[in-house]
């Protein structure tokens, strides 16, 4: 049976790495977008306070809200990370599966 486990493992690792490399810029982009949104909202809150449109209590309340918004953003990053891991595992398993199929074909 033509099945080289070392070669298969190497190929599996390469497939997983390819997924990580391909998906990383996407995650980086999401983090950057979240940080930019945070910056804009914090600036909005600061300007409203500096212009006297809101008082200290109101600013505190909106900053408290902003913490929750930021958490929602980080949860999106968590989903991205999990999805990337899922795709990498599946790409590696796919390589393994194909190697087994090929070995079987040669046997038959």
């Amino acid at each position, binding site marked *: 049976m033509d099945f080289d486990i070392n070669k298969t493992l190497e190929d599996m690792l390469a497939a997983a790495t390819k997924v990580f490399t391909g998906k990383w810029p996407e995650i980086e982009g999401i983090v950057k977008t*979240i940080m930019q949104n945070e910056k804009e909202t914090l600036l909005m809150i600061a300007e*409203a306070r500096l212009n006297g449109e*809101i008082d200290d209590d109101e600013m505190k309340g*909106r900053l408290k809200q902003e913490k929750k918004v930021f958490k*929602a*953003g980080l949860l999106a990053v968590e989903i991205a990370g999990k999805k990337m891991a*899922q795709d990498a595992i599946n790409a590696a*398993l796919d390589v393994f599966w194909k190697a087994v199929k090929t070995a079987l074909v040669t*046997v*038959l």
Partner: protein
Amino acid sequence: MMKGKVLAILWLILMVMPSGCSVRLVSQYDADTEKAIVDTAKKTDLFYGKVLELPQDQRHYASLSDQYVSIETDIRSLVLRNEARRLNAESIEQSKILLNLWLGIKNDHRCRQDMAKLKDDNDRKELTAFCIKWQQDDNCTGFIDECYKTVDACREDCKNAVKLKWSKTEERLKDTYKTALARIDRAQLKNVFFYMLIGEKLKQDSAEKK
């Protein structure tokens, strides 16, 4: 001979199946949920568009409460939709954050009513009590309620907190929803909807994206 038959069957199975087995760490993409996020985000933004069109002294909670409740119902339905899906912890938490944020904004607006316009004394008392409870400090959670009922029996700092909240609440009740606050709330809600949408879209597999 027997071995050959077994291998042939195995080979057939392998050829028919596109892949061995796949691992799932996040829930499957759901187009209906994506649509529900977009629809609720649109409805919320329209609400703010209308609020900001009104002069500040006419943004009364009572005239907007129906719309608040309608959006709250949509958000609760989003929470439910997410809770019904497996491997969906992050999206469930995101939708709960959204609900919490919305209830906070709704209650804050409810507490910005002109007390003089409330004809009934009981209505005034009820609203003030509601607002004090709502605005309680994190470090006093659980104490304020008690303090409110039996002021003498509770901690000194919480007694002071209650007194402070009383005066600030009465002050705030004269205001309506300020333009700056409405703009900040609109931006924060838009961001949460956006993060929920990103989360849902990320669940799409390459084949679904095509």
